[in-house]
């Protein structure tokens, strides 16, 4: 895979600076959503062959949570954005 991840805050950094949390597409259900919704969230995965968005933490850098869009077959990185900022609706500068 690409050895560099372009952190929107720090620039291109070696991917060893990051820790990976996994699928960024999962939406945490409400506490009372029921067993089935929670089973789905905790255990089931789309696990796509192709484009996949996932949480990467720049743990040895700016310590921001990022959403990395990556191809699981070619390992190409298609985009990196700040997780919190993009959830607030604004893209980082």
């Amino acid at each position: 895979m690409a050895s560099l991840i372009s952190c929107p805050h720090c620039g291109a950094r070696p991917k060893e600076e990051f820790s990976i949390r996994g699928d960024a597409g999962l939406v945490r259900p409400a506490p009372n959503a029921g067993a089935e919704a929670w089973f789905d969230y905790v255990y089931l995965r789309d696990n796509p062959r192709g484009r996949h968005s996932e949480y990467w933490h720049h743990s040895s850098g700016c310590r921001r949570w990022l959403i990395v869009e990556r191809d699981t077959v070619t390992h190409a990185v298609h985009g990196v954005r700040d997780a919190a900022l993009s959830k607030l609706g604004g893209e980082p500068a």
Partner: protein
Amino acid sequence: MRYSALSIFLNGLRGNKGWAPAWRDPAPKPHYDVIIVGGGGHGLATAYYLAKEFGVTNVAVLEKGYLGSGNIGRNTTIIRSNYLLPGNNPFYELSMKLWEGLEQDFNFNAMVSQRGVLNLFHSDAQRDAYTRRGNAMRLHGVDAELLDRQAVRRKLPFLDFDNARFPIMGGLFQPRGGTVRHDAVAWGYARGADSRGVDIITQCEVTGIRRENGEVIGVETSKGFIGCGKLALAAAGNSTVVADMAGLRLPIESHVLQAFVSEGLKPFIDTVVTFGAGHFYASQSDKGGLVFGGDIDGYNSYAQRGNLASVEHVAEAGLALIPSLSRVRYLRSWGGVMDMSMDGSPIIDRTHIDNLYLNTGWCYGGFKATPASGFCYAHLIARNAPHQTARAFRLDRFARGYPIDEKGVGAQPNLH
């Protein structure tokens, strides 16, 4: 043709021109009783035991590449049954017993070598955990010995015993563990299944699962439609993709695991040694190369290759354990795609679709399970009831609250 010392001798006299192919290359029939998707170790073992033990011979194994192109040809060949939990332990011990009789059973030299597996420990807490594991193994009738520092030093004097961070205090040893020639396992099972009438169809990719009134009636493949009574998935690395064709969503993530072989060396390590604290394990092949690996790369991947960062990480861990490795050259590396399940344990079960069966989630421990996985899966397919040692490997165990979390890290597949 049965292989024997005499057949080798006679063929040698005749210039080795008398050998026939070990299995046929048949065209697919329009319909089979059972179709197995995936011609890897588990798929071939399933076909073999279906034919041999359960009398189901109208079987096809469909493989998208060539035999041995998946994880059966991409692993570090280790076999062991040093498991703690009641759901796992008897199953892996069944596998170990099948390994012990495998070559006589399928008349093929798989080079089963019970050279022992040694798990090192480096702290009081780790020693206590291994003591508990060893006791659990012995209670289940599995061999286990707790070795102290001196005993490990006698066995493997070249380890770095006074490593500042992970001083070696001892190890849990399973003498019956060891290694097996992985490709020969695939070839032996393929030959055994083929000789009992199973059609092994390679270069045949499954592209769709056809259903009628909810039931599976066959598969679309790159060689056309093939009908079946029962469809058994054993497509490690691609389980999500294949199950998706039947609308089945799985508790699986695909991750890549790398392994390495060094240049050939004189006899050096006569056992399998694992350094869990540093993510490294090694053994020496019969050709002399050190075979070693570490952890999965940690992010979802369908690529049968890894990256240099893991190469470096494994090399560092290896050097920390065996300083003399600093002068050893890597010969080659490879990566296999693992079906990482959410609790680190496998799934052998029927699905909610009546004639669709599932075998997946072996994480990076599928090779040692090959015989028992095939045997129990064949039992399930033939009798529609789980084999008693695989009863815990249900697909619905996550929803019911019975995960088999051997490592105790929760629903986090990249940590198992």
